[in-house]
């Protein structure tokens, strides 16, 4: 059975985030919101990193169940970390958790449980800042991810397969990304091939699509290409996705269109097993 390897400190896995930082990311997202795509994507990465840190926190602190790389692509292709981790590629999760660039105090209004709204302040760690500059060298970014993944599985041949998550507005400027995407997925551990998931942020004012099993609801060719190059959700992730209310089938791909992808972290299985999959 594949995608069943235990994720542990002795046998860690890795996450490679690819962040589109091209000029077009300064456009607003669709749906009348005034947020820029670059803000949405940076927010998504920061939330994912916070979520992973919490998921892997144990009594003595955050455990290195994963090593994390965040690669930005736009004007250049390289580490997108800011702050103490700037310039680094794969970083053990415990260091990521300890070393954000800063912790922002964000004020927001939340329901008070009695029908009203109340203002509250939360601490929001930031590792990646929004950037929008230059072209969209997605193929080069995928190649960089491929190199990291290939090296990782050579060193951890029995690990839970690495996960590459690409956050983009879709339009590659250095060629057809499909080939580079497949190349990423040719790198395997004994537990299965590396997984490539995509988050597509788009100004095309369309309905959000979360983990679809067909491209029929997708508005354009970019979305369809990204859907095509996304990996199928492995069985146990599908199982947890269904528990989170996602209608997942065996054709469901790791693709999200204009929607939240942090739920992905909840699809990960650390230590405990889901017996009914056997």
């Amino acid at each position, binding site marked *: 059975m594949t995608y069943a390897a*235990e994720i*542990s*400190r*002795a*046998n860690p896995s890795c996450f490679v985030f690819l962040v589109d930082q091209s000029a077009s990311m300064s456009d607003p997202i669709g749906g009348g919101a005034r947020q820029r795509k670059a803000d949405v994507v940076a927010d998504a990465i920061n*939330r994912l990193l*916070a*979520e992973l840190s*919490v998921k*892997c*926190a*144990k*009594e*003595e*602190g955050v*455990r290195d169940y994963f090593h994390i790389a965040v690669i930005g692509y736009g004007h250049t292709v390289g580490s997108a970390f800011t702050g103490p981790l700037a310039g680094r590629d794969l970083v053990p999760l415990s260091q990521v958790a*300890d070393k954000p660039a800063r*912790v922002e105090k964000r004020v927001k209004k*939340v*329901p*008070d*449980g*009695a029908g009203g709204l*109340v203002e*509250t*302040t*939360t*601490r929001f*760690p930031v590792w990646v800042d929004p950037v929008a500059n230059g072209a969209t060298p997605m193929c080069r970014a995928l190649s960089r991810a491929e190199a990291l993944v*290939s090296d990782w*599985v*050579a060193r951890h*041949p*029995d690990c839970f397969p690495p996960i590459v998550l690409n956050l983009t507005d879709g339009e590659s400027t250095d060629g*057809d990304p*499909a*080939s580079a995407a*497949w*190349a990423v*997925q*040719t790198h*395997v*551990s*004994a537990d299965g*091939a590396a997984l490539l998931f995509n988050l597509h942020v788009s100004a095309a004012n369309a309905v959000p699509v979360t983990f679809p099993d067909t491209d029929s609801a997708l508005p354009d060719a970019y979305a369809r290409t990204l859907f095509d190059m996304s990996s199928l959700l492995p069985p146990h992730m599908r199982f*947890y996705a*269904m*528990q*989170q*209310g996602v209608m997942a089938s065996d054709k469901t791909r790791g693709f999200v269109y204009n929607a939240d992808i942090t*739920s992905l972290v*909840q699809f990960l*299985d*650390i*230590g*405990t*097993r*889901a*017996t*009914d999959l056997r």
Partner: protein
Amino acid sequence: MTTSPSFTWTSDDEPVRAFPSGAAYVEALQNTALCFRGTDLAGAEVRVDALGRPRAISGNFAGVFSLTVSDGTRYAIKCFTREAREQAARYRAVGEHLARLDDDWTVGFDYVSQGILVEGAWYPVLRMEWVEAVSLIRWIEQNTDDPAAVSHVAARFARLVAELAAAGVGHGDLQHGNLLIGADGSVKLVDYDGMYVPALAGLPAAETGHRNYQSPDRTASDFGPEIDRFSSWVVYLSLVALATDPSLWRQLRDEDAEHLLLAEPDFADPAASFRLATLTSHPDARLRGLAERFQEILLHHRAAPPPLEPVEPLEPLDTVRTVMAPAPVNAALPSWMAERVQPHVPAPPPLVRFNRRAPALAVLTWALSVLLPLGVPAAIFVEEAIAVADVSALLAWTAITTLGYRRQPERSRARDARAERKRLHRARLAAAARATRLDKETRKITQEAEKSKEVHDYKRRLLQQRHNARLGAHQQAVKQHLDRIDRDRQTSLARMHLEEQRLLAVRQKEHLRAHLAEFPVKTAGVEGVGPALTTNLEAVGIRTAADFVGVRYDVQGPNRVAIFVLVDGRGVRVAGIGEVKAGRIDQWRARLTVKAANNRPTSLTPAEHQPIKDRFAAAKGRLDAQYKQVLDEAATTTRELQAALRAEQAVLADEMKAANTATARIRVDHDRAVAEATVVLERARQAAADGNTRADAFRTITYRRYLRFTLTGKG
């Protein structure tokens, strides 16, 4: 403390609602006045991490946070990240059942359905008393070198298992994270999400436990007081093994591994399990016996294991407790442990000596040694037969002493020890040879993987290059074709322009002639050209300015003669009109011509233009259609080429994936073999050294020494 609950659902589940993620709880807990609004936890102080955010202890299905309320009471608050069916009812049943027990392993809890407010919705929490204790793995790490303490915890654990069974309780997820060891060696059991109590009979299990502690055959339908049997064997065997041989902690598991000495792969395939084999072949008979029993369970009773069979009868709790008193360590050890507890460098065993001396043999030997030197002179001087008797006596003595030596119990023990030393030495050499061979293989595997990668990279580049070449050739051909059509279009356009220019020229000429024709010579009033000359001009056909196009002058002898050039190009002389007058008439025509030019047509009228356009439109349409067709076909071909490339790339990707999968499997098997070989070698070295030491103790057990012993009584 740690919790790691897990839930499973059956297909008849009611629709699930998404629960907040761990990070969502961390966010909500930054304002405890809000998230616990209306409960006595409102405003409680939450333990934070280095970033000042609530510090979680996460399991797969919940996070636990430490909160301290105003009176100083500290709680562990468990927040669930996935919905569990009938959770409240299960906890109520568990709570009621545990309340009736008087066991010291329990931890008090309170299930609060409307426990925490997250983004406007209420979710349940489990409020537990905070336990000052560490999880089993951390405790073992701190106590590996204290076999007495480990042994005590093993005994305490066996007692806990018996207590659970007596109470009709099944915990469901016995594992290192849920077994907490207090500073006094007490054992607490936490995380009751999957607990069975009699009131829950008939329900499916809410979780199936940690993979490294559970039978591969366990399913959600296994839910009863016996659900902990398998995991209790796993924990107990590990603890007994560690108390017996602490080096196993390092040898049988990776640092940071999330299991004790055995893990899921050992349960799934016990026959191939190195770890299990190490335990079942351990020099310590007690451990070996326990491991063999568990191996038998794995092979034959994995789905329904028998209850734990502790190696020592369970002592009353109080007795076990006293073990932890800081008494002399060895004094309080269970008997099976005492012999194994040794300092790091064990003292060599005492030298073995002979201790069974046969007095008759001693006398005989003394007699012979005294008498034998006399044998030769006696044979020479007295009787030859004495020599024969002498030799016979010597032979007989040799036979008797040899037999005596062989009968010495020390001698057979020495032989065994030496044979064992030889065997262990050979085993060590074999282990070393295997490690060396595997080392060589490592290099080979790396090289082959690199080669395979190079080959595939090359194939990938080749594919792209071929595609680029095909695409380039295609684009070139298309360009040439389009250029040709473009040239045809240019030519056609030029031809149309030319025709238009020609027509325009004709129209301009007609305009000029019509204009000039409006000016008769007779009304021109050219100086010196009266009616007579006008008549002469008319005689040659020049009536208006339109009737001639110019004047040229021929030289005839001394005179220059003016010759009018008619419209048809003929030259005529006009009687009476000489050079001067002809010049004036021509100037008159030239002036009129200039005037006419000022308002001549500069372009064709649409009516004139249209027939020409129509004539060329068909050709242009044909060419435009051709152009578009070439472009369309080119786009189709490009798409086809792209699709062909993608298909080829997909095939290659599959090929690479297959090759990489094979490499990964080889690597995994190889890495495991290397790790195991390293442990085997380490253990073989130790065993060989021990064998040497043991054999060395018999170094005085030789025939020569035996003779000396027989003579002197000194070993």
